[in-house]
């Protein structure tokens, strides 16, 4: 396989609703931001140089459109070029990066656009004036329709069962430890201009917010968002040709789909998709599952719910099983800690625009390695970052991307 680098990043603000834009206009904006990001670095390319697109769009009902990618294709000037859409639940973004990587690594393209977008809040029922029930329904259809959906399975209840089982098995995370994630990520978002939910809050605020699905409270959950995020990927030859000074190489792409029926798993409290995706990504990047915490500078995790971030510390190998809760108490994942997690604010701080989310996380991690994360920049010493995406029924899908900046390592 050929080497692949991220050379441009474009992320629109994550908002509760864009009243003035359609989803294809949002996708256009992110593409333009990514092209501008290239141009600012002195990389002379336009949309005409892009050879293909891989689209990350989770849900037809959000966009009120089957095959929404083909309409974007026209709006962003990619007519008569190949385009493929990826839809893998909450992990759509990470999977889209993986497939865009494959597009370039395989030699099919030298310059590939990796574009995610979602515009859920147009699921608005004018008769009732309500958005949330429509959006949640559109998400709930991701559950098995022959049994789980009619029984009332929703996204939060699906995650709660796994987090509760994890606590039963390993004694981590407690409600207060989960609340610390919410405090950290809402706080980190204060320094990120694209974030939807920047907040300075305390553990008490989280504990006192209303219960959504025990033990998750309001402030333990991410908000759904509208946004688009875009990466431009280039082959090694193209990196040389264009004279890219600060390419962020993708060195590991790991993904795994575990059993979508939680009750079929050996242990309900373990996300095997996380564990296997991490091991695959680390192996490809030549890193070590048992020592990963010391091999990377920053991780952008998929914290749709605070408890999920804590169990990811353990499943991705940052700390042994059962120690995730203690690790956040010790400040390990804080900016300035052992391994900063979600310095962007993550999903809890930025919001969750499903197809765009994992691409935003990967883009944020790439900007960190480039030293371009502005006010939420962390210290880069090892020159490596991780981005994590997970989702689908029972978090069955997971994708992990490892990136490196060779300059930063020197």
């Amino acid at each position, binding site marked *: 396989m050929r080497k692949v680098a991220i050379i441009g990043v474009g992320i629109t603000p994550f908002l509760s609703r864009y*009243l*003035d*834009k*359609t989803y*294809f*206009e949002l996708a*256009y904006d992110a593409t*333009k931001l990514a*092209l501008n990001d290239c141009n600012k670095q002195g990389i002379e390319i*336009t*949309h005409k140089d892009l050879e293909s697109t891989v689209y990350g769009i989770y849900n037809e*009902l959000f966009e*009120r459109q089957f095959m929404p990618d083909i309409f974007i294709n*026209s*709006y*962003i*000037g*990619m*007519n008569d070029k190949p385009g493929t859409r990826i839809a893998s639940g909450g992990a759509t973004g990470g999977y889209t990066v993986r497939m865009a990587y494959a597009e370039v690594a395989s030699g099919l393209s030298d310059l590939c656009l990796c574009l995610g977008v979602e515009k859920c809040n*147009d*699921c*608005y*029922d*004018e*008769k009732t004036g309500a958005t949330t029930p*429509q959006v949640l*329904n*559109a998400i709930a*259809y991701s559950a098995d*329709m*022959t049994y789980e*959906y*009619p029984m009332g399975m929703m996204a939060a209840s699906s995650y709660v069962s796994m987090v509760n089982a994890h606590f039963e098995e390993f004694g981590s995370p407690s409600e207060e430890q989960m609340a610390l994630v919410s405090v950290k990520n809402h706080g980190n978002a204060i320094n990120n201009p694209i974030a939807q939910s920047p907040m300075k809050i305390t553990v008490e605020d989280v504990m006192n917010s209303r219960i959504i699905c025990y033990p998750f409270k309001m402030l333990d959950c991410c908000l759904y968002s509208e946004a688009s995020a875009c990466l431009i990927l280039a082959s090694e030859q193209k990196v040389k040709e264009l004279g890219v000074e600060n390419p962020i190489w993708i060195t590991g792409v790991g993904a795994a789909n575990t059993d979508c029926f939680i009750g079929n798993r050996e242990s309900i409290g373990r996300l095997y998709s996380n564990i296997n995706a991490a091991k695959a990504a680390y192996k490809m990047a030549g890193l070590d599952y048992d020592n990963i915490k010391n091999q990377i500078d920053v991780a952008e995790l998929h914290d749709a719910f605070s408890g999920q971030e804590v169990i990811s510390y353990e499943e991705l190998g940052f700390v042994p099983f059962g120690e995730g809760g203690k690790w956040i108490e010790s400040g390990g994942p804080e900016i300035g800690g052992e391994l900063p997690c979600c310095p962007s604010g993550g999903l809890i701080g930025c919001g969750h625009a499903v197809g765009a989310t994992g691409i935003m996380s990967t883009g944020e991690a790439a900007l960190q390695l480039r030293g371009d994360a502005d006010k939420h920049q962390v210290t880069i010493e090892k020159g490596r970052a991780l981005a994590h995406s997970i989702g689908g029924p029972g978090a069955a899908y997971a994708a992990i991307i490892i990136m490196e900046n060779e300059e930063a390592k020197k």
Partner: protein
Amino acid sequence: MLEEDQEIFITKGMVRADFDFWVGLVMDKFYDGLQEKKFIGTKCSKCGKVFLPPRNRCGDCFVKAEEFVDLPETGILKNFTVTTYKITERKIRKVKKDIMVGLVQVDGADTAMLVPIVNTNPDNLKEGMKVSVVWAKKLKGDPQDIAGFEPVGDG
């Protein structure tokens, strides 16, 4: 294997999406225009291409196309077909009178749009013939405001 007298469990179609969504700034303006018997298109600020139905980005030039232009009620029939079936909410049924649909490029526009062809019969249709809009009796600001296009003069 199904037993001969076995009843099967059939569940209701559960995917429903009862919600309204916004068609975007330019299509909103387009539908408002229809209600006033006007075609409103957009023009690319770079190549000058005029889009009808309007869109506010020109993909080829990768720039905004936010200048609105008023267009006339006449155009050219680029292509057409005749269909003898129609889908209703209940079934697909044969129609009493053939339905004609065509792609019409309104004068001054660079794109063609899908419309019904009315007040003529299939034998009279020719590619490249002149056509003119027939507005619905009751205008509501939606696609059905365009009752169709009919041939002008000898076409």
